[in-house]
């Protein structure tokens, strides 16, 4: 009976039921089977008001929407072009850097393709790069930077891990540590991608640009109000003056002042609309997070992770095999699920398992998000594929083909990140 209902829920999920409803259904079913009164669901949902850190999610998202609405993307491309355009494969490097920086600033990623892709794709083609290469580069860079401060997925991982740490015996997972741990893996990805870009275009007739001090100065001047922002966020968080939620409040206010009062690219009249749009997205994520907290409570209460561990231990003995299987599973799910949903559903199940195999929770967070980043453009439902297909008017099939080489490069990066924990943990432990 219960098993049948569970199968039905999975079927509904595949039919496109909103994931919050599916997860709620699963939690309700579980509590019902354990004869717990269902008003427990209310208590679980109310946990959404437990965490101060969570405040960072709406604030960073709003700041990201503002930056997406203003002409920040143009300024960023201009600046990175002036700074790096002279290098071999310069425009490709510009694309990587601009995408990583913009994704980091805006927290998510869909908007990166919309805002930057439209500028970078024609610029790449005009600079002499092959069209298919450019398409693949822009589409796969759309999720680069997901590991950098103030990444929202890392934040969400940290919140769930903190909730779990109340019940599990594990080392602390501070949001700050996650951000520190993400730095080198993110740089590794950029470095590998750039290396591949430079190698694959080595015979292409791409003219090198000259370096122009005047243009660099002008581009810097153009960005004068936005350049201090990373300093405010990074400096505030890493110096310990601001906790993450406070840094988010400062960021939101700063961006508001910069775009509305200083650049005057967003009018006061537009503000309520932008606020509303960003909060609708936040609402979608928070709702999933809330119901996932309910499911987590059920899973821990019913001791499911222990059972799962007992089952898996008979088949998987060492940490490396566990991590290989974990990566396969994450990639598979990452291709199917929205990243935020994927994150909140998987962490409560996998974190307790990983701890028993001796994986550091901070390292696990980096593995999770690195996987998700690739999931953004894996067929069949990688979100960025659809956004790019819509934006550049290309068929999905064409985009699959264009992104595959980039995906392979990122898979190599993922392998390195997974099996070389020091890369992530060197700044933390």
């Amino acid at each position, binding site marked *: 009976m219960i098993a049948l209902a569970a199968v039905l829920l999975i079927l509904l999920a595949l039919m496109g039921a909103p994931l919050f409803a599916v997860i709620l259904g699963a939690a309700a079913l579980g509590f019902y089977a354990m004869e717990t009164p269902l008003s427990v669901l209310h208590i679980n949902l109310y946990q959404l008001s437990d965490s101060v850190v969570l405040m960072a999610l709406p604030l960073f998202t709003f700041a990201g929407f503002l930056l997406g609405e203003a002409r920040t993307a143009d300024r960023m491309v201009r600046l990175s072009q002036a700074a790096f355009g002279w290098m071999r494969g310069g425009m490709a490097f510009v694309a990587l850097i601009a995408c990583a920086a913009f994704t980091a600033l805006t927290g998510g990623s869909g908007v990166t393709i919309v805002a930057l892709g439209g500028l970078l794709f024609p610029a790449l083609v005009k600079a002499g790069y092959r069209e298919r290469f450019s398409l693949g580069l822009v589409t796969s860079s759309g999720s680069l930077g997901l590991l950098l401060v103030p990444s929202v997925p890392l934040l969400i991982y940290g919140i769930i891990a903190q909730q779990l740490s109340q019940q599990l015996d594990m080392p602390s997972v501070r949001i700050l540590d996650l951000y520190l741990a993400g730095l080198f893996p993110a740089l590794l990805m950029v470095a590998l991608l750039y290396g591949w870009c430079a190698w694959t275009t080595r015979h292409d007739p791409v003219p090198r640009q000259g370096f122009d001090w005047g243009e660099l100065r002008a581009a810097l001047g153009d960005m004068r109000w936005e350049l201090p922002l990373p300093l405010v966020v990074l400096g505030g968080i890493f110096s310990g003056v601001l906790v993450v939620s406070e840094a988010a409040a400062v960021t939101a206010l700063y961006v508001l002042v910069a775009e509305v009062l200083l650049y005057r690219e967003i009018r006061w009249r537009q503000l309520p609309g932008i606020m509303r749009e960003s*909060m609708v997205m936040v609402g979608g994520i928070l709702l999933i997070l809330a119901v996932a907290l309910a499911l987590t409570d059920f899973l821990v209460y019913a001791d499911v992770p222990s059972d799962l561990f007992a089952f898996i231990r008979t088949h998987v003995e060492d940490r490396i095999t566990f991590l290989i299987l974990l990566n396969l599973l994450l990639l598979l799910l990452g291709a199917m699920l929205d990243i935020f949903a994927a994150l909140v559903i998987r962490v409560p199940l996998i974190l307790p398992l990983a701890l028993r195999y001796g994986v550091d929770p901070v390292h696990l967070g980096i593995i999770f998000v690195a996987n998700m980043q690739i999931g953004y453009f894996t067929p069949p439902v990688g979100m960025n594929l659809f956004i790019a297909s819509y934006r550049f008017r290309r068929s999905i099939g064409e985009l699959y083909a264009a992104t595959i080489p980039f995906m392979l490069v990122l898979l190599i990066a993922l392998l390195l990140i997974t099996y070389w924990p020091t890369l992530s943990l060197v700044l933390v432990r």
Partner: protein
Amino acid sequence: MFVLRWLHRLEDALIVLLLFTMIALGVWQILLRNFFDASLVWIDPLTRHAVLWIGLLGAMIASRNDQHIRIDLVSHYVPPRLRRWLVLVVDLFTCGICALVAWYSTGFVIEEMDFGGQAFAGLPSWLVQVIIPLGFAVIGLRYAVLVVLGLLNRRPQPVEAPQS
């Protein structure tokens, strides 16, 4: 129609107001702590509850156009005629789950009301929690409307969730 427009305006206004409050109080708290060596105890629980309210209000607004996060295989790979029936089943399910949660949550909040506890700053705890049953009731109702529209074959297409 009038009631609907009124509800939409109320949701929009509240969510914008809450976000403004959150930014202002967040920054104000930092200033207080660093320059005046003081802090206001009610700011912290207020912003935490603002997160809860923003979450549910945002989810309510998102269900106006069925903008919720989902595994989107259907709209890309299923032919329209079959899609219509799948969407109907899915809407019905969503509506049912929301009704279930709204029902049990209402029960809890009524108990809380009888109990008369306080959340913070003198606010009764039922008041800060009431958004949960209210939110799920509204989301459930919106999906009920989608079910009816689906039966009449007049349901709007699901909208892709906006991404940051």
